[in-house]
């Protein structure tokens, strides 16, 4: 709702799937799940092996509750099958490939058939409509267009609803502001922290956000807070909604808030979302916090079964005022692993460790300091200076810092500041070293 003024108008992109009765949805989910299990059992060796180990055949799945008999899929499974091991169709049927970072070294590669891309656009059309966007809007997508799913994912969904799409991609912030002014952007799609950075840049440039045409902001790809939403809305004069997704299951579009801003509606005709206790791995009740576990039931190229997202959330019980019947989950509260999200890019400390170990002479004594300065995530990598790399020449030590910075940027698409520190200045904790100090206060 803008400025608390006018009445909220809820629009629904696809009433057939977004307002299904519970019975109808359960039937659709069961049929799609059964069909998907048949396909992965036939086509994906890794899943067949997992099923065989527990003496499970796709025909054994008689009801949705049988899904909980199946083993989880983890990021390690995806990495171990790099690059195409989990594809359920031949590569000739794949028309798009994206990837995201893995826990160490190799990324996770995901593929899409033509039908998958249609499904994806459909899901984005839903969350965009839920967030207020219509065919009359001018949508500026300030997510990176590339292997990351943010840019292309939103792009085709925005086109599908008939909006005018500006594929601005990430970065070049002053140009982004100029585009907003001149092209009369009405909807902004990016990470929430970048939205605040844009607000800051406008201030610096002397651009009054009130004079812009902006109405809607659709933000995702990193955790944020209600406080941040309020700040974005009041500084940019927009209605800001949260959406969620991860490339392992599709990309953005898994769920998104409607204008009621009370939980993100899950596309449960495409995904079955479970919430489990991350320690016991047993399902928790509606309303209780736990880890989201996602099964794709309507995806051809890269289906996943019970994928452990590591994202902590809970189901919001009850019906939403918007008229959608889809279940909702709350804002992502955190993660069950040590993955960092730096300006929307995923990074595991183990990836930095890997990289350091490959650089001759450097020992993997490091610490990551993450902070948010002027609404931009800043990553500092502290590396101990040891005798192998020590020299009397400052320029050589600086060159080493630069080299590590360059490799982090090239390999992981994250810009970091590398700082050599004295040995033992990195705190050693009993047992596990504390690798990450996250000073960001969301």
């Amino acid at each position, binding site marked *: 709702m803008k400025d608390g003024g006018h009445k909220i108008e809820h629009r629904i992109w696809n009433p057939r799937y977004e307002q299904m009765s519970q019975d109808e949805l359960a039937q659709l989910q069961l049929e799609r799940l059964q069909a998907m299990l048949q396909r992965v059992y036939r086509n994906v060796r890794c899943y067949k092996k997992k099923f065989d180990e527990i003496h499970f055949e796709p025909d054994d799945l008689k009801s949705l509750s049988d899904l909980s008999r199946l083993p989880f899929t983890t990021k390690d499974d995806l990495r171990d099958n790099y690059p195409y091991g989990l594809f359920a169709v031949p590569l000739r049927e794949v028309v798009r490939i994206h990837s995201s970072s893995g826990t160490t070294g190799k990324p996770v590669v995901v593929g899409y058939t033509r039908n998958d891309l249609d499904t994806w656009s459909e899901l984005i059309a839903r969350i965009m409509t839920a967030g207020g966007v219509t065919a009359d809007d001018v949508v500026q997508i300030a997510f990176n267009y590339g292997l990351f799913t943010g840019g292309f994912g939103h792009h085709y969904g925005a086109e599908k609803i008939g909006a005018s799409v500006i594929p601005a991609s990430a970065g070049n912030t002053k140009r982004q502001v100029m585009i907003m002014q001149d092209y009369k952007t009405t909807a902004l799609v990016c990470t929430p922290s970048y939205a605040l950075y844009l607000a800051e840049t406008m201030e610096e440039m002397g651009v009054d956000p009130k004079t812009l045409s902006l109405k809607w902001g659709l933000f995702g790809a990193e955790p944020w807070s209600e406080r941040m939403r309020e700040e974005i809305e009041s500084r940019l004069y927009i209605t800001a909604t949260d959406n969620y997704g991860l490339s392992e299951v599709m990309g953005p579009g898994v769920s998104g808030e409607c204008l009621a801003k009370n939980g993100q509606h899950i596309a449960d005709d495409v995904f079955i979302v479970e919430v489990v206790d991350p320690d016991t791995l047993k399902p928790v009740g509606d309303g209780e916090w736990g880890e989201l576990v996602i099964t794709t039931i309507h995806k051809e190229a890269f289906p996943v079964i019970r994928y452990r997202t590591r994202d902590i959330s809970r189901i919001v019980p009850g019906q939403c005022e918007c008229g959608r019947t889809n279940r909702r989950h709350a804002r992502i509260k955190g993660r069950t692993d040590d993955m960092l999200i730096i300006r929307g890019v995923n990074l595991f400390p183990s990836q930095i460790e890997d990289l350091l170990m490959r650089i001759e002479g450097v020992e993997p004594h490091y610490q990551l300091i993450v902070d948010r300065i002027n609404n931009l995530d800043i990553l500092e990598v502290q590396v101990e200076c040891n005798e192998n790399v*020590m020299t009397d020449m400052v320029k050589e*030590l600086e060159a080493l810092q630069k080299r590590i910075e360059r490799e982090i940027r090239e390999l992981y698409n994250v810009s970091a500041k590398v700082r*050599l520190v*004295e040995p033992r200045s990195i705190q050693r904790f009993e047992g596990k070293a504390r690798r990450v100090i996250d000073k960001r206060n969301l």
Partner: protein
Amino acid sequence: MKVKQISVFMENQPGRLAAMASCLGDAGINIMALTVAESSDFGVIRLIVNDFEKARKILKDRKFTVAETEVLAVEIPDEPGSLGKVLKVFAEQGLNVEYMYAFVSRRQDALIVFRFDDPDKAISALKNTKVKVLTNEEVLALVK
């Protein structure tokens, strides 16, 4: 002809330099020449001391990261123009001075430390000049 220089890695933080100096002082080590090179994040302290091995061991025991480099200690007359003459010799030979700094000494002549990529080449360049390159022993004798 070459002198051993010890370099110490140091974060730009108050008290670090003092910690290093006092641990050398407590061990009775005399700092004969010293220079600090810094970047925005850290510094490298380069030292010529009267007991290299002992200084290195003490610093390592105290968890300082150290490096060893061979440098030239050169004696030149303490008068206008003499530094220029020496530098000209190096320039003519295509020798690049990485860095240089001066000794603390009570002698008549000035003592300069030079760091070259190839110190041996620098020594031979000075052979037919009046400039004197000091040996390690001659440098150590300075403190007595």
